[in-house]
């Protein structure tokens, strides 16, 4: 970049300066530009403000005079000599300046493993003094995205750097679904006794966002519904590999299935029926209704966000394994989805997320679900009871959706279980033969009375669910999805 464009950019960037006051003034403000070209791996430094201010130190002039007067009063030469001490301090403070070429490199690194919502992410910022003089007082604050909360460490640091040395500090944020960008870091550099200060902003090289968007097809999630990979054997006759029975030839049967040996023997045309292979079938029911969009703490994502992520990961997993998986989503409005989706009951229904169109539909539903899951629901404080009244879903809605379920498909319900609606669906599904499994992220924390009560009620629902569902997987608030999936894989609860 040419110097001219650099300069103009820096001029635009610097904030407005105050004017010099006429009478004796402690501070002079200047607009020295100290920006530098950055290669893509180095950070850009922009000077915002430069202040020289010896005002506070001038009080020691009074101290010097005090000593001088005392020395004269008591006729002590040593005191008069000692009066030099405060004067020298003031002089030194007045003369100390910052190095002319400030050159600092700031680099940020973020945990680059695959992130799931709720994971603690460690961000490490390292600051290097690439100039040639010592920086004795450098204070830096990193611009954390406003949606993410800092739960450990501090995004601020104060460092003293020799030329060429590097110091680093780190802090932890909790990841949420989405892509969150960091801003520029802000620095304040001071001279030795603090009289010359420069405020700078630095674009940070290295990682510039916390990215948690693609649900990984996590190992182990498919084990939740206890199906073997590939195919299951069924008891019906039809196409397949293993012998089942024979029947009379009907026109239209494939020639390969005709039992030619028998024809050779007896002259009858007979068709062999093999065991019908059925591809494994699953249904994933995702619950992101408004009641579920609460979190255990302000630092963590909502239960609905966890559920949406887990459901998407599960569907992805099943698809990779070749199962036929259907998707039902409660709580997502059809208008919010980009492409038209079929509705069944009051849920969105995608018949087969394995096909091309099905995949588009499922992706659209999941993206809408992720958006809606992050829009938190404010609690209603105008209640006359301790907990909100739970609304029972309409039986017609339940049956409308459950009727769509393919026969003998296994049902995976992903829901934070904030009320008994998922249980109603589970009961109905169990009755007609779709064995339900429940994967439930925990949106409650036990720190205060409200959290405890909600946690207790959810616990009761979980117990009830254990009686209805084949398997209940309780996903505690502080564990990550990958840990839960691994536990499921190993055969845990």
């Amino acid at each position, binding site marked *: 970049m040419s110097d001219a464009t650099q300069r103009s950019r820096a001029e635009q960037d610097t904030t407005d300066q105050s004017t010099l006051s006429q009478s*004796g*003034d*402690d501070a002079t403000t200047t607009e020295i530009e100290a920006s530098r070209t950055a290669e893509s791996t180095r950070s850009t430094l922009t000077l915002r403000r430069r202040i020289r201010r*010896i005002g506070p130190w*001038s009080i*020691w*002039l009074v*101290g*010097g*005079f*005090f000593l*001088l007067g*005392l*020395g*004269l*009063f*008591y*006729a*002590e*030469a*040593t*005191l*008069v*000599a*000692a*009066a*030099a*001490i*405060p*004067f*020298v*301090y*003031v*002089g*030194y403070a*007045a003369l100390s300046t910052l190095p002319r070429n400030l050159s600092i490199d700031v680099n940020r690194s973020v945990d680059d493993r695959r992130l799931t919502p709720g994971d603690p992410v460690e961000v490490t910022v390292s600051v290097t003094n690439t100039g040639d003089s010592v920086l*004795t*007082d*450098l*204070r830096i*604050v990193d*611009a954390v995205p*406003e949606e993410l*909360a*800092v739960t450990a*460490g*501090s995004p*601020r*640091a*104060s*460092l*003293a750097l020799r030329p060429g040395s590097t110091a680093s*500090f780190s802090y932890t944020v909790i990841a949420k679904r989405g892509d969150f960008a960091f*801003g520029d870091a802000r620095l*304040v550099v001071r001279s*030795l*006794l*603090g009289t010359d200060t420069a405020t700078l902003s630095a674009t940070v090289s290295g990682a510039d966002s916390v990215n948690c968007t693609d649900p990984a097809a996590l190992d182990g999630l498919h084990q939740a519904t206890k199906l073997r990979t590939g195919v299951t054997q069924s008891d019906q006759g039809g196409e397949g590999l293993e012998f089942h029975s024979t029947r009379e030839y009907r026109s239209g049967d494939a020639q390969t299935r005709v039992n030619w040996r028998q024809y050779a023997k007896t002259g009858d045309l007979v068709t062999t029926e093999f065991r019908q292979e059925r591809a494994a079938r699953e249904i994933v029911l995702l619950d992101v209704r408004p009641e579920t969009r609460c979190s255990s703490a*302000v*630092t963590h994502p909502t239960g609905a966000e966890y559920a949406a992520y887990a459901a998407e990961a599960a569907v992805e997993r099943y698809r990779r394994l070749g199962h036929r998986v259907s998707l039902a989503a409660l709580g997502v409005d059809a208008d919010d989805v980009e492409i038209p989706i079929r509705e069944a009951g009051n849920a969105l229904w995608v018949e087969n997320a394995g096909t091309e169109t099905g995949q588009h539909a499922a992706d659209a539903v999941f993206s809408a679900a992720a958006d809606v899951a992050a829009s938190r629901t404010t609690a209603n404080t105008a209640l006359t009871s301790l907990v909100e009244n739970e609304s029972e879903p309409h039986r017609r809605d339940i049956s409308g959706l459950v009727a769509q379920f393919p026969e003998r498909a296994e049902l995976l319900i992903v829901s934070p279980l904030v009320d008994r609606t998922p249980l109603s669906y589970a009961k109905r599904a169990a009755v007609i033969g779709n064995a339900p499994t429940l994967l439930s992220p925990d949106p409650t924390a036990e720190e205060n009375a409200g959290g405890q009560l909600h946690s207790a009620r959810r616990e009761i629902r979980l117990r009830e669910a254990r009686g209805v569902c084949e398997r209940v997987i309780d996903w505690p608030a502080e564990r990550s999805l990958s840990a839960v999936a691994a536990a499921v894989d190993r055969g845990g609860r």
Partner: protein
Amino acid sequence: MAADTDDKAAMTTVDETNWRPPRAGSALGIAIVVVGCWLLADALGVVDSLAVATGGGAGIAAVVWLTSRERAAAMGTLLGVAVGPLAGSLLVAGLGYTLIAQLAGFAPGGTVFVGVSAVLAGFGAASIPNDSADRDGVSTAMWSTLLSAVGLLAVVGALIGNTVRRKEEMEPFADLPLPETIPELIPDATAVPPFGSFLVITSLAVLALRAALAALPVAELLDDRAGDDDAAIKWFERLQSALGGATIGVMAGILLFGARILLGPAYVELWALLPPAVVGLLDALARTPFLRWLAIRLLAVSVTIVVLVRLIRRLHHNGIRRHLGKIAIVAGTALAFAAGWMGHDLILNTLIGRLETALPGSVAEVVLQQVDDVIEYYTGEVVALGLVTAGAVTTGLSLAMLRLGMLFQVVPGRHSGHALASAGLFAAGGFGAALGAPLPASLGTLVGAVVVWDLGRFGVSLGRDVGRRAPSLSVQFVRVLTAALVGAVTAALGLGAVSMTPVAIATESAAAVALFAAVGVASLASLMLAR
């Protein structure tokens, strides 16, 4: 980066105390103050008294912290007001002993100035950890201690006046027209039984009893289940309604009373209509002193109970800092008063013992004799209380002076702990050097004063910028080192210059001219640099 989060609250997971100055810097500042003061005191030979005086200064800082706390505010105010007289008396005692030592020749003249500076430094150093010496805190402490001092003054004044009166056998109130005796409750024998007044008194007593029972937690003591079918509660309510019937008695009594006054002789005739047995019974009842005595006691006790209960419930429920604050001040004063009264032996013995050791022989005799006379005249308790009051007054006045300094902006209004500590240390160093303390100690104290000031300011700014969570030890270390080095080098140079050629200032006119020139130059330099 301005946020568009108008309707979303910005929640933070960081505590308020995170933004205070880092602990290491504060600890170092306090250490420098302690070491500097100790070195100077040691050099001047007044370590004991200076330690006591500085302890008093630190005690006043503790009073400021206690009275301006937000958590457990009432308890804090109570303790602060109770400790105030102690701190003040320590201050006075320490400085007094220093003055005595100076006058008696044990210490160079002017040592008391070093003492005052050390007190200031002690106050500042003790205010550093909690950063409590700001405008509001000092104001609150000042008002509380002044109120307490006024209260103590009033009480002690009364006691002294009483003692004087007793000793001199004065009767100041002899000329006031007080009634000789309280009028009797039982009227003279009259023709008719004084049933009216009896009825009124007893009925009022019964009503008061009812109110007291209602105020007391009798219902809660029995049971407070939701179900009403409890015999005890029913019985209690029946009792209450029965007692309520005493209203009739009040009305009847008033009627009779009025009738007696209005009807006059006709009243006597009305009474004569009743059968004599009844009259005799009523008469006996109305004249029994025991019943009247009981009724009046019951009335007094019930009223007291009702008032107390109201007070307690109100205090417990409201928790308003004002009410509790005022009561806490009174309670603290009472505590100090009680301490002085009970411990008067201890106080007086300590005082006399110290005086014995501090004063030189001949003076000691005279002074101790005087002290003994005073104690005998006014009794030990009163003298001890007088000392307590003096301490309270000292604390109040010192805080008032500090507040005045803050008003005139001589003292900074916020984070003034390290500024005061630095000022005190600087003055102590200067006076110490003037009085002949060894130069390394006094010059070192001067340098230490500047370092404490710089470190304090730096710590405040660091705490506000990065907080305690972020590591800041290296930066503080560099800053302290820089400041200390600058001062040490200058002090060493000055020492070298002075030790090479000792000179008496006031002997040569050349020297005088030179000094004026130096002063002129220094002022010009400061004018330049102060801009």
